[in-house]
């Protein structure tokens, strides 16, 4: 069941358990790999492409969050090439929607903003698409601003996997993809929503926030979802 394997992460030999992902092993051994769509306690989907790593003997980059470790695996988590790709991924996220950090409730507490700062993103090389997107304020306690959504689907998974309500889904294709609540009903009319707010706490940006906060005022409890999962698993 719990087969032990040895892997190398950035040259260091680390004991891991078969079935763990590269990201889990790396984080457990204090090696930081950036990620936006990954959240401890939720299933991994490999959507944001920030956790891409180099695996020796494998010709292309692999997402650390969905790649399981195996005996003898050797991983490089940071290189000039990886940093360049991560920077591109971040810039494309900014170019895709209207992330106006200056007027965001989550500014200063935003994972996207922080990662951009960490990766030296000083401007976006790609043309902004400036889409016209709605803001759903129909819920009495929470607000959904599609302009700031990066489609990481952490809210979708937190709602479906932890709360068991599955209010959220991603509809559409490509740049037309949108987060939808309950078959495209306004959030406030979604009868399966329990108003628990786990989606809000799971959201890495200011796309989901509690009502009533001003610019820079919305801080989130990042560990809520992870803690609920570990309580459920009794660990």
């Amino acid at each position, binding site marked *: 069941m719990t087969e032990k394997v040895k892997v190398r992460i950035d040259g260091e030999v680390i004991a891991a358990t078969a079935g763990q992902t590269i990201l889990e092993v790396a984080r457990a051994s204090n090696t930081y790999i950036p990620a936006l769509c990954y959240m401890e306690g939720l299933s991994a989907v490999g959507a944001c492409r920030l956790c891409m790593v180099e695996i020796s003997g494998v010709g292309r980059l692999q997402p650390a969050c969905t790649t399981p470790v195996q005996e003898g695996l050797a991983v490089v988590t940071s290189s000039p090439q990886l940093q360049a790709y991560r920077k591109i991924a971040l810039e494309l996220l900014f170019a895709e929607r209207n992330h106006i950090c200056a007027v965001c409730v989550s500014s200063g507490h935003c994972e996207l903003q*922080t990662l*951009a700062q960490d990766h030296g993103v000083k*401007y976006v090389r790609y043309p*902004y698409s400036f889409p016209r997107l709605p803001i759903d304020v129909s819920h009495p306690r929470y607000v959904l601003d599609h302009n700031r959504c990066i489609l990481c689907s952490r809210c979708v998974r937190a709602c479906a996997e932890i709360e068991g309500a599955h209010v959220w889904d991603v509809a559409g294709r490509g740049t037309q993809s949108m987060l939808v609540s309950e078959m495209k009903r306004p959030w406030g009319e979604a009868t399966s929503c329990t108003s628990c707010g786990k989606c809000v706490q799971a959201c890495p940006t200011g796309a989901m926030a509690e009502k009533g906060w001003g610019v820079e005022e919305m801080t989130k409890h990042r560990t809520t979802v992870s803690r609920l999962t570990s309580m459920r698993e009794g660990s």
Partner: protein
Amino acid sequence: MDRVKIGTCWLDGCSGCHMSLLDIDEGIVAVLRKADIVFGPLVDAQEWPEGVDVAVIEGAVSSQADLALAQTARARSRIVVALGDCAVTGNVPSMRNGIPVRSLLERVYVEGASAQPGVPTDGVPALLKHAQPLHESIKVDVHVPGCPPKPNAILLVLSELLEGRTPDPGSKLRFG
């Protein structure tokens, strides 16, 4: 040694970046020991002069006048600094970009007017389709994000440029 010529200008922004520039406190004295500010909201010059060393540009490129001034500044300056989020990302001025210009102006100046409704045309430059970051119109050499950028980041950038080095404000800066 020749004195360095700095020009500043304020396109579609709120002037907050210029406030932050003034907020470098006594740092401005050190800057002005080596440099003259030859154009901008802080001085009287009517036209962007030739032979400027450092152009510091605040604001998004939002109107034909913004575009013309940005292009003049670029043509007559050695180094262009995009100062603040509006110049770097489009920021708040770009929030109008999802709305067609005509509907936007009519919403504000006709539907929203309590007296003398009508879209102004005399003496005001025409709006461009989008408020764009500066680098979409002209080549930018140094980007300084922030809304506004922290005074110490601005001082660092200016000091490095005055020493003839390329500034790298590193992780001091972020959007917003």
